[in-house]
């Protein structure tokens, strides 16, 4: 039985890992997201495109937050691109936006990496 999260990942020309999520980042799917998209190691950059996320639970938000902090500690960069309103509202509700690297869209997030 599959959870409701689709996850595709590729490395672009500049070496940035781009992860595109769509569907629900919830209690069920979050463990898989954490497994398949580990926090970037030193010098690495991961951009997570949230554009097609339809629902985010506290565990999903927690994973994004934990990845950001772990990346920061390891010297990598964990970026979130084009968060939809449903994600943004939850982040604001918990006052977490200030602890995350947010970008309006994927191109911006990747470009800044170069």
């Amino acid at each position, binding site marked *: *039985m599959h*959870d*409701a999260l689709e996850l595709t990942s590729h490395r672009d020309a500049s070496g940035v890992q781009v992860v595109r999520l769509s569907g*629900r980042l*919830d*209690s*069920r799917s979050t463990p898989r997201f954490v497994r398949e998209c580990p926090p970037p190691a030193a010098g690495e950059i991961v951009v997570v495109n949230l554009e097609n996320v339809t*629902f*985010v*639970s*506290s*565990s999903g*938000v*927690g*994973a*994004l*937050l*934990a990845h*950001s*902090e*772990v990346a920061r*500690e390891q010297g990598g960069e964990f970026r979130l691109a084009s*968060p939809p*309103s*449903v994600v*943004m*509202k*939850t*982040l*604001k*509700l*918990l*006052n*977490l*936006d200030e*602890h995350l*690297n*947010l*970008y*309006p869209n994927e191109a*911006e997030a990747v470009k800044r990496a170069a």
Partner: protein
Amino acid sequence: MSATASPRRARMRLGLLVPAASALVLAAAMLAGAVVSERQARHLLVTQSRSRLALEAELLARASASAMLDGFPELTLQPILRDLMRGRNDLASARVLDRDGRVIADPDSRRIGHHEPLSVVTDGGAVVREDASNFVAVMPIRHANGQLLGEAIVVMPRAPLEHALAATRMRLWGVAALFVLVSATVMFALMSRLLRPLAVVHEGIERIAGGDLETRLALRDGTELGVLADTIDDMANRLSAAQKHQLERERLAAELEAAGRIQSSLHPPGGTVRRGPYAVTGYQRPAAEVGGDYFDAIELPDGRLGIVIADVSGKGLAGCLVTFMLAALVRVMREREASPSALLLEVDRYLRPVLERGAFVTVWYGVLDPLSGDLTFASAGHLPTVVRRADGRIETHESKGTPLGLLHPRILAKNLRDVTLRLAPGDLLLQLTDGFTEAARPGDDAQLGLDGVTAVLAESGAGEPEAFVARLCERTEAWTHGSVPDDDQTAIVVRRDPAPATARVPFADRDPSEWLARARVGGEPLRLVATFAELERLGPWIGAIPGMAALPADVQQGLESAVYEYCSNIMEHGYRLDGTGTAELWWVPAAAAPAAANAAPRVRGWLVIREDGSPFDPASIPAPDLSDRRARMRGRGLGLAMIRRLLPAMRYRPATSDGNVTLLEVDSDHLRRELEESPDARCA
């Protein structure tokens, strides 16, 4: 005593007064002596003059007697008279009369032959008469046979005698004046010498009176003035010491007052903190400027309220310092520790090293969850917690916890226990320090006791908590006859507003069986099996709630998030995702309130959730401190914070006859407000 008083001046100066007076007295004495001595001198001189004059008259009479027998006594007498007069300028004149009164001899020959009356002279010696200007001695001249032959008269003027007396008097006056002058001078010098220290003493006292307490006369003087000066120095020493002591006391008093101000700033300002239907009122009456009691009501980030009351053994500054530290520890740890007992253990760990040997602290710490009405507390050796229920019943909740810092931490950890009370409408919880219970009655020292306090609680109606505190203070005052308390009196009262007498009990405050009865009227519940996958059914189910479709997508998603988080907890913690347990959800709409025609669509109601998982108290899950990086790295515990923000109220009733029942209050306006507070996505 005024420093601005003009220097005083003596109207009469002793240094002049005494010499003048003594000169006056001396002059008077000398005057009296002079008068007496002049009288004596006069008497002596007059007596001498008279006897000499009498002798002259007798000698003249004797010389005249033989001459009178001659035929021409004038011839003989005239030379005798001349001889007598010669060299005797003290005699004015002398003459001899015969028995007929004819002048027969006179230095002035022209007077011979003149007549003058004979003095009536008896036998015997010469008679001396006095008149204003002369002494006159008359001696009868007799023949050997006793026959009267005539008279011999010798006249002496008084003037020389008076001159002599006057000269003597002048000398006497001169000597006296000199004497008075010398003595007055000596007296003046002596007085000046004696009174000079007096000026020093005067000036010194003026300076001391003017406030210069460092003045010392240091007069080395053997007289009584020296003793006086030493006494004044001694007095100045003591005044100066007393003044220093006083200044020191004032400084200390000012510092204590400042410490007291800081200490009272540890309490919630205004005394009462309100949180929905709950009012927390604190009261403190310190026995001194600073106290060893502490209370506070502090808001936790998740909306719950931390309430603390403590009594530090020992009063004064030492106790006050411990309360500062205690307040700081409680404020720092309130967000980190999961339960009141854990917080107290942690506070004990840090407080223990600073407590003096034998010192200890009794603390009561409670957390009020305004959503559920649950108050969970732990007590470290504090007085029992007293609750007056809305129906007047009094409950006393003892605690086994030992005071912080007193016994080994292991013993504290073993005895500390979290106790949860539920405050229903109209209930009142009281915590206080022994300043109230041990208030002593004058006379027999009987203590007010917890019974005395609960008696006040029992008598009080369902008034405001402030009114109860005022009443408690009044009773304590009456008990101690208004004497100054010798221990701090601190009380904290938590009261839930009573249900309006006329209104029926709100749905959320009713028994869980009523919730379920009402819910079941609405139809079949949504049944979810204990897996995460099942939770994906919540979204469509919520979307189907009547009226929900008219609401913005954000609001629907917000509600889904809150319910998702709550159910996720049940599945994960209650059922451990066993795939067999079920949770049932009903939607119970609230009675529709009349809405304005153009008002935005609104959905209000309750979600009733029933399940049989192992009970867990949502309130026991601490909110993570997201300012702490380690907490962010764990990324856990955010769900309950989401629920608290998104829903106005939550009631959890574990282990009822129907299983665990939860009531989640839903108000779309509340959701809208909470979500609107988050502005649109802002990107880096």
